[in-house]
């Protein structure tokens, strides 16, 4: 809150500086502003930038890292009672102290005796430190703002190239913004690699990538963790692959045929109606698909298979019948099919673009030879569009692999090595969600394994995307 007030005040101060700078620029020319190198506004902006930007950056930096600084300072000189606690307990203790200081809700841990007084003591301290940081940052900000004015104001003179300077600031801002995208990638890679590295200290990489047993729950206790490969991710890869395969079996033919129909056959009117409808399908949030899968498709498929089982029971396929009667709501088929529906518009709009990029002259050439439309599509258009369509399908695969909500709500949690679509399987993303929701201790391999999975997921999807985007780029250049 205080930060907001400070920033608002700073903004007002910068505005005032702008006015002052402008006025001064006009004043130094003794009423002949035409002598100025730049328009007077630029002189104002120059002064305002010096007054506002460094101070604002400082205040924002403190707002961003103040919490961390405070947490660090709070741990200085721990009371004896706290020193006796284990490291995770200490974390909880300090979190609670900070929560109390902020007026939030602490954990349900019960403290008594020396700990209770220590907690109250630390809570008070926390409040002290945080207000110190806050006021300190604002104070420093104020000094910087004034310093900025003292730097910029005296420079205002008719020869001063204010416009170039201001444009220099703008260019800097541009570069910073563009670099954000690079920083995001760097942040993703750094955080995934760092946390995974910590994970791979505990679980060897090959065990993770090649192990066939996944059971992070058992491994919560340190003594069990060293035991037989409970962090083997292969079942998750198999489950992810199975669901992806089912999804693609739904999405690829339907999406592709819709794209072909829309681009080759449909009248402009049909196109103008169908395309927005498909866009709606694409815009539906995945959590909605998850809900649909869990509460509509799952029960429907289950009762269907159970019914088939009941019909077959006692016959020569009794084994199969017994199996079918046991089929559960959560099966790979349900998650895969619904994910396939979600991907239809994705495949269709990408392929539509690709097919439309095939030059009309090729179609004309084929039609003028006496080919029918479908022959033209099958023998000329699709072969010409093939690389692009492959790329579109790869992008869809990447989406399917990274999709989270549908599988979380409809696939299941049991890690199994199966390719049977009626079985419950789990996927990489489901496991990341389960491992990271609920209570976390940040140093256990259980939590860290989520980052190992995240890294694998990122690497795989990145590879798919790079390949696909490269193909698309080449493809577009070919027909440009």
């Amino acid at each position, binding site marked *: 809150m205080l930060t907001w007030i400070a920033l608002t005040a700073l903004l007002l101060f910068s505005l005032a500086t702008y006015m002052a700078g402008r006025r001064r620029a006009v004043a130094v020319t003794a009423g002949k502003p035409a002598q100025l190198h730049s328009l007077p506004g630029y002189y104002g902006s120059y002064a305002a930038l010096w007054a506002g930007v460094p101070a604002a950056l400082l205040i924002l930096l403190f707002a961003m890292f103040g919490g961390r600084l405070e947490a660090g300072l709070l741990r200085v000189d721990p009371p004896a009672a706290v020193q006796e606690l284990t490291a995770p307990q200490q974390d909880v203790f300090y979190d609670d102290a900070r929560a109390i200081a902020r007026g939030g809700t602490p954990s349900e841990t019960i403290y008594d005796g020396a700990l209770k007084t220590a907690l109250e003591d630390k809570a008070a301290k926390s409040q002290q430190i945080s207000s110190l940081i806050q006021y300190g940052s604002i104070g420093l900000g104020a000094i910087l703002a004034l310093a900025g004015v003292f730097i910029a104001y005296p420079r205002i003179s008719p020869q001063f190239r204010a416009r170039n300077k201001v444009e220099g600031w703008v260019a800097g801002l541009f570069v910073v913004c563009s670099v954000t*995208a690079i920083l995001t990638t760097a942040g993703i890679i750094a955080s995934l690699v760092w946390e995974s590295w910590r994970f791979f200290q505990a679980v060897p990489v090959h065990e993770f990538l090649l192990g066939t047993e996944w059971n992070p729950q058992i491994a919560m206790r340190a003594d069990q963790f060293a035991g037989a490969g409970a962090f083997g991710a292969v079942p998750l890869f198999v489950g992810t692959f199975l669901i992806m395969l089912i999804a693609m079996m739904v999405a690829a033919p339907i999406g592709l045929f*819709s794209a072909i129909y829309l681009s080759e056959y449909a009248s402009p009117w049909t196109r103008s109606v169908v395309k927005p409808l498909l866009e709606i399908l694409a815009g539906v949030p995945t959590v*909605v698909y998850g*809900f649909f899968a869990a509460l509509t498709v799952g029960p429907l498929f289950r009762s269907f298979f159970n019914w088939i089982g009941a019909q077959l029971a006692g016959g020569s396929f009794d084994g199969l019948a017994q199996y079918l009667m046991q089929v559960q709501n959560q099966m790979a088929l349900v998650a895969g099919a619904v994910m396939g529906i979600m991907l239809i518009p994705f495949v269709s709009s990408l392929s539509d673009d690709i097919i439309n990029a095939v030059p009309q002259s090729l179609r004309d050439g084929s039609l003028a030879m006496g080919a029918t439309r479908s*022959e033209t599509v099958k023998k000329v258009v699709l072969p010409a569009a093939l690389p692009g369509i492959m790329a579109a399908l790869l992008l869809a695969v990447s989406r399917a692999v990274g999709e989270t909500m549908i599988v979380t709500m409809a696939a299941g949690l049991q890690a199994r090595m199966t390719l049977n679509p009626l079985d419950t399987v789990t996927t990489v993303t489901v496991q990341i969600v389960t491992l990271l929701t609920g209570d976390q201790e940040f140093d256990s391999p259980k939590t860290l394994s989520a980052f190992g999975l995240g890294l694998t997921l990122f690497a795989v999807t990145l590879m798919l995307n790079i390949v696909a985007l490269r193909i698309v780029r080449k493809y577009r250049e070919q027909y440009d």
Partner: protein
Amino acid sequence: MTDAALTPSANSLRQTVEARLKKRHAQEMRFRLYGRLAIVIALSFLAILLGRIVTQGYSTFIDYQITVPVHLDASKIDKADPTGANYDMLVANSVLAKLGETDDEFGNKSGKVLEIMSNDLGFQLLKMVREDPSLIGKTVTVTGPVKSDAALYFKDQIKRATPEDERKLDNQQLDWMDKLKASGAVTSGFNTGFLTRSDSTEPEQAGVLGAIVGSLMMLLVTATLAIPIGVLAATYLEEFAPKNRWTDLIEVNINNLAAVPSIVYGLLGLAVFINWMAVPRSSPLVGGLVLALMSLPTVIIATRSALKAVPPSIREAALGVGASRTQTVFHHVLPLAMPGVMTGAILSLAHALGETAPLLMIGMVSFVPGVPEGFTGAATVLPVQVFIWENASERGFHERTAAAIIVLLVFMIVMNLAAILLRRRFERRW
């Protein structure tokens, strides 16, 4: 071989072609049919999906309220400490009285009544007495929702035909409810509570207000970060940056970022914002930060294509009259590209509004029974609320899940319409 041998007479050639015509046209029809079928299937999925959600959720918007006069018995409420009294029991007894029944000594009947009345009525009494202790000893009228199971009975989703031991409410309770309804004590109406309350452990008291406010706060954070940064980055890349290895790298990088699974952004948020920068968990701030990073590539891509659509002649004209590059871009090019930019921005915000997975990583799954206290307070958002309710076991929540989806979809439709209108309104042909 001579040419003549290879050049069959026009007639025989024609016959060869015609012989295969029927087959080829049949193939053509089949192919066209597959295309039609694919479209019909895709559209019927859409219809089924939306239809299911509406049929599952619309009933949430009707609710059943019971109105009972309750005698605030002075002997049961301690004037000095009104909090201690059992208001639920007072309500139950009043309802029993209305039904013409009396409680047995074990409190069985009042217990059963409490299974069909929301404890919201009791809370209301407590609140009244706290505000005005002089009410004690008098009779007041309270109106509140019935329990969600009871509402499901009124909505005919729990049926009397179901054997008694397979449903939550027994025959006596059903009889009472019929009677209450017949007597006019229970009335139905539009469920405003769903839109004015926040999450609750009781389905009949649960609403989406907290989630809506949470979503809006989060989107505000996302928009204030992603739009300016994205627009500036795109402007730089499109209008200023030299075409070299670096900008090429940035470009490839942005395209790839747009295809990174959203859950990875959640992991990034968890590691960087929460663990490293100590931004409070499950707050709109951290959610907004994560979604801003996620939306950034799409905003950049949309802005670049809007800028590309501005014809070069405009730039040349502005530069020609002596404007600097920066002036040209900010005074002429960007304003012309603005409708396209805003359309893209709104669409990516709409997408961010529906995003769930990364928010689960940063602790947004917690139970938040109220409107978020601020940008750093605990919050929940609409899609996560859907996820939480879908996991709840009570039937009453399933109905609410679908209704929350309807609310979410309404928001998304409004945003998309805004984008479309913006595009129509400002569409320009050069």
